[in-house]
C-alpha cells in the first residue's frame, strides 16, 4: 500500500509519496530516445486532438505541440482547474473548434486517470500496490469543486483517505521544515503561521495555529481568480505590444504557445536567472525579430495584481485575531517571484517571512505527512451556503443561510455538523435552489463569488412518492397541506453538504447538494 499526497494545481500536479520517514516526489516518467526521463511534476495542461477526438495529457501533450502540423491538429487547453469554480453536474466547456464542447467531468476523469497511470509507471510504487491518497484543494473551493475533485480521483483508482485545504497542508509541511524533518519534534511544534499560497490559478491565505498534532485554521479567505496564469497573460501582452500584434487576434494554438513561453520566462525571473524577459517569436511560429521586456516593466504591472492578495492576507490575519503570529509562509509556484516577498515584507515588516526552495511541492508533502500521521486538522467553511426561499407570500425571494463562512468544520472522523430547518409547505412540490457565495452585504444578500447550484425538487404532497420524477411545471400552490417538513443539513470534514428532506408522513430523501 502506498500513501500519497496529491496537489492538483492549475499549472502542475505534484504527487509526493511516503517512504519510511521520507517524502520523495513521485516523478512523471516518460520514455525518450535517451532513455527514461523524469520530471518532478505532471503538467496539468492537455491537448485535444481534432483528428481522433482524443485527449492527450502530461508529457504526451507537450510532445504533440512539437509535431509538424500541430497548429492545425491540436487544441491546447491550459488551466482547466479554473473552470471548476463554475462547475455543476453535466457542465460542458464550450470551444469553437470542438463540436459540442468538452464534458467537464468526463475530461477531468480522464486527466485523473492519466495521473494514476503516471504514478503507476513512476517506478516508485509496486504494480498492484493500492494507492491511498490525501487530496488537497483551494481553501476557497466551492462544494461542487470539492465533490468533483474527490469523486474523479476515486474513480481513477485512488483510494481517497483524506482531503485538506492547500494552506493547511502547507502548514503541516512548514512544521516539518522548521525542525528539519524531525517528525518527533514536529509533533511537538507550537506556533501560529499565516500561509500565503499563490499558485497558478488561485490565491489562498489562512492563519493556522499549530499545537502539537492539532492544526486549527483560525481564518481563511482567498481570491478565486488570481495566480501565475494571470501573470503569464500580462507578460504575453507585453511581448505582443513589442511585436505590434494583438494577443486576442492570435489563434488559440499560438496564444497557448505564447503563454507557455511567458510562463518559462517568468520562472527564469523567479529563479533569479535573468532580469530581462525575452521572446524570439520564431520559437512559437510567429514572424518578427526577438523582443525584450525588462523585469521592472513587468513587475510594475504585476504590483497591481499582487497587492489585492497582500490586502487579503491582512484581512485574514485581522480576522484570526491572534497576537502570536510569528511567521508568514510563502508557498505556491508564483510566490517565488521576488516582487511577492518584497510587497509582503513591506506590509508586514515585523513578521518573519519563510520561503522554501520547493514552493510547488510543499502542499503535496504536507498532505503526504498527514496521510501517515495521526493529526487533527480543523478547517473552516470558507463560503456562505444557503437556500433561496420565497417570502412575503411568494412575492419575493430571499437568501436564507444554512452554513455561514467561518464555521468550524469537524475533524476527519468526527460527526458532521448538523442543522435542522423546519418549513411549512405552501406548494405540492418544494423547489430548492441552493447558493454559495464568498461574501454577503449588510442586509445578508449574497454579494461576491456567487454560485447557484442545480435545483432539487421534493414532493411535499403525500400523494406523490419521494422518488417520483418531478419537473417545475408541476408545481402548484397548496394551502391544505398540514404539518411541517424537516430539512436536515449535514456538512462533513471536506465541507461537502448533504440534505435530508422529510415530510410529515415520515417519508424522506437524502441529496448530496452538488449532485442534484
Amino acid at each position: 500500500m502506498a500513501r500519497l499526497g496529491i496537489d492538483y494545481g492549475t499549472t502542475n500536479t505534484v504527487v509526493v509519496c511516503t517512504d519510511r520517514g521520507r517524502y520523495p516526489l513521485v516523478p512523471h516518467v516518460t520514455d525518450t530516445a535517451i532513455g527514461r526521463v523524469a520530471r518532478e511534476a505532471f503538467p496539468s495542461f492537455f491537448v485535444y486532438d481534432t483528428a481522433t477526438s482524443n485527449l492527450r495529457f502530461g508529457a504526451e501533450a507537450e510532445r504533440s505541440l512539437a509535431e509538424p502540423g500541430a497548429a492545425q491538429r491540436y487544441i491546447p487547453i491550459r488551466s482547466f482547474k479554473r473552470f471548476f469554480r463554475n462547475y455543476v453536474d453535466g457542465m460542458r466547456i464550450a470551444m469553437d473548434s470542438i463540436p459540442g464542447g468538452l464534458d467537464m467531468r468526463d475530461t477531468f476523469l480522464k486527466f485523473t486517470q492519466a495521473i494514476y497511470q503516471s504514478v503507476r509507471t513512476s517506478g516508485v510504487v509496486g504494480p498492484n500496490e493500492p494507492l491511498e491518497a490525501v487530496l488537497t484543494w483551494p481553501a476557497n473551493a466551492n462544494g461542487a469543486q470539492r465533490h468533483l475533485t474527490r469523486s474523479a480521483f476515486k474513480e481513477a483508482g485512488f483510494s481517497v483517505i483524506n482531503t485538506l485545504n492547500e494552506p493547511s497542508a502547507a502548514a503541516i509541511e512548514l512544521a516539518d521544515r522548521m525542525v528539519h524533518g524531525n517528525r518527533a519534534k514536529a509533533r511537538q511544534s507550537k506556533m501560529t503561521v499565516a500561509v500565503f499560497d499563490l499558485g497558478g490559478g488561485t490565491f489562498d491565505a489562512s492563519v493556522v495555529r499549530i499545537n502539537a498534532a492539532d492544526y486549527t485554521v483560525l481564518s481563511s479567505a482567498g481570491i478565486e481568480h488570481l495566480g501565475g496564469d494571470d501573470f503569464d497573460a500580462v507578460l504575453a501582452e507585453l511581448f505582443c505590444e513589442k511585436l505590434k500584434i494583438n494577443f486576442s487576434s492570435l489563434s488559440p494554438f499560438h496564444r497557448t504557445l505564447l503563454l507557455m513561453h511567458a510562463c518559462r520566462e517568468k520562472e527564469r525571473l523567479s529563479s533569479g536567472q535573468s532580469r530581462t524577459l525575452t521572446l524570439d517569436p520564431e520559437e512559437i511560429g510567429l514572424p518578427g525579430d526577438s523582443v525584450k521586456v525588462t523585469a521592472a516593466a513587468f513587475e510594475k504591472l504585476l504590483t497591481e495584481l499582487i497587492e489585492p492578495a497582500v490586502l487579503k492576507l491582512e484581512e485574514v490575519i485581522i480576522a484570526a485575531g491572534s497576537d502570536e503570529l510569528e511567521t508568514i509562509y510563502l508557498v505556491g509556484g508564483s510566490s517565488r517571484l521576488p516582487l511577492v516577498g518584497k510587497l509582503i515584507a513591506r506590509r508586514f515588516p515585523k513578521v518573519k517571512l519563510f520561503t522554501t526552495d520547493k514552493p510547488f511541492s510543499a502542499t503535496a508533502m504536507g498532505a503526504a505527512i498527514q496521510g501517515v500521521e495521526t493529526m487533527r486538522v480543523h478547517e473552516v467553511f470558507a463560503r456562505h451556503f444557503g437556500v433561496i426561499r420565497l417570502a412575503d407570500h411568494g412575492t419575493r425571494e430571499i437568501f436564507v443561510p444554512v452554513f455561514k463562512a467561518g464555521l468550524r468544520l469537524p475533524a476527519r472522523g468526527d460527526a458532521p455538523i448538523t442543522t435542522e430547518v423546519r418549513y411549512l409547505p405552501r406548494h405540492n412540490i418544494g423547489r430548492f435552489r441552493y447558493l454559495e457565495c464568498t461574501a454577503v452585504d449588510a442586509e445578508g444578500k449574497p454579494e461576491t463569488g456567487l454560485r447557484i447550484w442545480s435545483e432539487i425538487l421534493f414532493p411535499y404532497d403525500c400523494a406523490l412518492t419521494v422518488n417520483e420524477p418531478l419537473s417545475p411545471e408541476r408545481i402548484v400552490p397548496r394551502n391544505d397541506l398540514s404539518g411541517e417538513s424537516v430539512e436536515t443539513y449535514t456538512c462533513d470534514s471536506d465541507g461537502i453538504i448533504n440534505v435530508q428532506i422529510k415530510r410529515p408522513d415520515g417519508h424522506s430523501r437524502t441529496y448530496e447538494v452538488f449532485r442534484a
Partner: protein
Amino acid sequence: MKKSKMIKPVAKTGTKPTLKPVPSLKKAKTAVKSSPKKEILKPVSKPVDPSASSSNEALRQEITALRTQLSRHMAPVSTGSMEEVDAMRRVLNDLMEARMNDVIRELVTIRNSAASAGGEARRIVEQMDALLSDLGAMKFEAERLEHVDPLIHAVSREVSDASLPDGIIMETLRPGFHTSRGIVVAKALVAVNRRS
C-alpha cells in the same frame, strides 16, 4: 475585533524574506555542539609511540587515534532515536540531490560558455565534461533525422532541405545533460528541418 500588532502598514521598503540556514548543516552543528567534548578534531601527538621506527607506523597510529576521537564526537548522533537518524538522512539526501542538480546546471552553463568561446577553451570543456561525468551528469546528443522531442531537445535553428521530412533534427548544436535519475538539466540544442 482584536487587531494584530504586526499588520500595520509601514513605509519601509525592500525588506527581503528571511532565509533560513541550510537545515542539515544547522542540525549537524547542533549535534556536534551537544557532544560531551567540544574541542574540534585536531592532529594527535600524544598517543603516538615515540619509538615507532617508521613514519608510516606513526601515521597509522595517528589515524587510529583520530578514528577514536571521531567516534566519540559522533556518539550523540549515532545514539539518537532511529527516527532522528532517519530524519537527518532524509533531509541530507533531499538537500544533496537538490543542490547537486543546481550545481550541475551551473556547471553546464559554464561548460557551454567555454564551448562557445572555442580555441583554448576547448580544454576547459573537456575538463568540465569529465567533472560533470564524475558528478553523475550524463551527456547526450540528438540523433540526426530523428524527430524533435520537446522533453529533451530545444530548437535553436531551422534549416531547409526539401528532400527531407519537416521537423526532423538535422544537427546537434549543443549537447544536453541529464542526471542518473533521468532529470534533464539541459536540453540538447538542435537545428531542425523546415521544408517551407
